[in-house]
């Protein structure tokens, strides 16, 4: 029973991921990305990590996908409902995706304790909270400080109209996409 479910979810994750990069319409690509992220959440749920699954849906599908739609609508020119996705450099993309796959596969192979025979005990939400806010509290705080800095940086870049500074004094614009993406809680 579980195997059938796994293969259905895996197929939906793969097909939607391919459609993300093959869609001609950017909005459709973003919506397919939502399906990919939902499938990932379904994997988490199958692994009995319900907290992770919930956060995945809340932050990625509800937050990031929504923000991406927002970004596309504000920044791209569109005629009617067509926003052309410019799919250049598919070979480069293939190379990057291939090497990422190799790295992840290697990391999985090299990790100890992923034994098929051993009984699987999922981490409870309580344990997760203890780990985050007691054992790894320093790393947690550093990450939140970094995100705060990114949010403030995004505001600084977005407020170009303020006549306080010349545009040359502003930070490099390539910081914008990652900053806005991370700005959602």
């Amino acid at each position: 029973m579980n195997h059938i479910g796994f293969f259905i979810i895996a197929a939906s994750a793969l097909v939607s991921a391919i459609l993300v990069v093959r869609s001609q319409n950017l909005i459709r690509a973003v919506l397919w990305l939502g399906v990919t992220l939902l499938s990932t959440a379904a994997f988490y749920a199958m692994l009995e990590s319900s907290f992770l699954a919930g956060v995945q849906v809340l932050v990625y599908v509800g937050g990031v996908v929504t923000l991406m739609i927002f970004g596309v609508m504000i920044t791209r020119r569109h005629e009617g409902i067509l926003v052309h996705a410019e799919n250049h450099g598919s070979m480069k993309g293939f190379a990057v995706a291939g090497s990422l796959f190799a790295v992840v596969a290697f990391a999985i192979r090299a990790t100890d304790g992923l034994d098929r025979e051993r009984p699987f005990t999922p981490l409870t939400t309580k344990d997760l909270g203890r780990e985050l806010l007691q054992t790894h509290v320093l790393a947690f705080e550093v990450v939140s400080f970094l995100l705060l800095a990114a949010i403030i940086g995004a505001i600084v870049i977005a407020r170009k109209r303020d006549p306080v500074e010349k545009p040359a004094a502003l930070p490099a614009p390539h910081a914008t996409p990652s900053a806005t993406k991370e700005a959602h809680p």
Partner: protein
Amino acid sequence: MNGLVHGAVYGGVIASVLLTTIAFGIWFERKFAGRMQSRLGPTIVGPFGLLQSVADVVKLLQKEDIVPRDADRPLFDLAPVLAALFSLGVAAVVPFSPTIIASDLDVGVLYILAVGGLMVIPTFMAGWASNNKFALIGGMRAIAQSVSYGVPLVLAVLVPVILSGTLSVSGIVTYQANHHWFLTWPVFIGVPAFAIYYMAMLAESNRIPFDIPEAESELVAGVTTEYTGAKFTLFYMAEYVHTLVGSAVGAALFLGGWDGPFAPGLHWMVLKTLVLFTVVYWVRWSLLRLRSDQLMVLCWKWLTPIGVLLVLGAAAWVQFVPGGFQ
């Protein structure tokens, strides 16, 4: 296999009960609005006009299904189905009584936030796929509103989670039944948190004064401009279901859910839900619609900072006041 049967039975029963409640809820709203405006409301179909909604649904379902020629057909067809799915889906973790709950998830609150937050996707999809300027503006407004109001909603919902020390909805209700309702104590945290939850819930379900994605006086009918017949009915029902389930969640998180004297739990839960549901329509027929920028000011300059303070206050309460959950 047992889980599937259990889910199907519970899902079917809860969905039918909710949709029936909605049908009479619409009748009740029209009567209520009529009385507020010195009218009678529906009187013709059935005794006291009670069957008005049934007649409306039959009428709507008979109407021609029109799809604009240049619409994005698959997305256009999918949007109302997803809207109905997500709005009904939230009901799965709402405890209607100590025993009536479809799925007692240990991360129920997170599930409510996640699935409720997904509602914006079909709303935008409808606006986008209609290929209509009014619908598209409505879709954009829905996205902007949802991005903003997600923040105070999460902050407000965190307050009962911190006070009770659990993410399970039934756990939160049980805690309130054993101690006190969060609306009544600690009152200076519970009341504002409930107010923020209620406002964010109105905004999430696009109700006046936050119905700017639909704004019939500016945008024809916003995202639903191009929808007719059965698909329009689905959208219309999904919006009511979203409001009803939002009221039920508010009753469970802040008003003690099924807790109450004399009567069985189910009665109390239904009563509290319907009171909150009625207030939605009281507000709807009393207030005017906010402008987009006013909405953003209210959210970012008032609700979000107050929400952060409330979360800090709740954490301090649990930490320093004796008799907290630890």
